[in-house]
């Protein structure tokens, strides 16, 4: 079951940023590593504020990190 329709490219962007680990990304954003894992796997939709923090930590625009399918 995917509880959210929001998808993301965090994993790809982490690797594109010199193999940034989940632990390091979690530290930069100020959340637990488990939360980063849950977001990457689509089990948790972060708040808008956390989404911006993740995008900033990955040095990428928000819509490059998170995606939402067309239509309602």
């Amino acid at each position, binding site marked *: *079951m995917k*509880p959210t329709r929001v998808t993301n490219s965090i994993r790809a962007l982490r690797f594109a940023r010199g193999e940034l680990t989940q*632990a390091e990304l979690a530290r930069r954003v100020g*959340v*637990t*590593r*488990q939360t980063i894992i849950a977001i990457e796997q689509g089990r*948790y939709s*972060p*708040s808008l504020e956390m989404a911006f923090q993740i995008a900033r930590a990955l040095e990428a625009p928000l819509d490059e990190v998170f995606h939402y399918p067309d239509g309602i």
Partner: protein
Amino acid sequence: MSREERSAWVLLGTSIVGYVVYAAIVLSGVVGSPLVEAAYVIPMLAVIGGAIVAGIVVNILASIVAGIAAGIRHPDRAEEAAREAVEPRDERDRAIGRYAEYGGQAFLVAGALGALVLAFLEADHFWIANALFLAFTLSSVLGSLLRIRAYRWGMP
């Protein structure tokens, strides 16, 4: 497994074991006599107190065992595991906590209404106290299950 999920498992276990122990003590004390004559107050208080203490102790022991296991599996990440063991709750933990608490409250409301009806009917104190205790237990069990589900598969 995160610390918060582990604590949900511990609460689930202590709630179920506590209620089973309580029921066994009360039922074993009334063989051949009406249930309402059972001495339930001391067992109930003892089980509530025991479950709280057991929950704290098991949580601490589980954290120690999980830390040692993580250190053995990934010796190079022992420092990281130690830091994760004391991390504060984050946004997701709080959201899951609210979701589980909200779901578990359904049983609390049902139990309170049940106890109210029993009081209106002038039922024995035994039934009123036990309706509330059962509601607390079911609320705790449902809340723990919702937390575990949310940590494992996400929130609906």
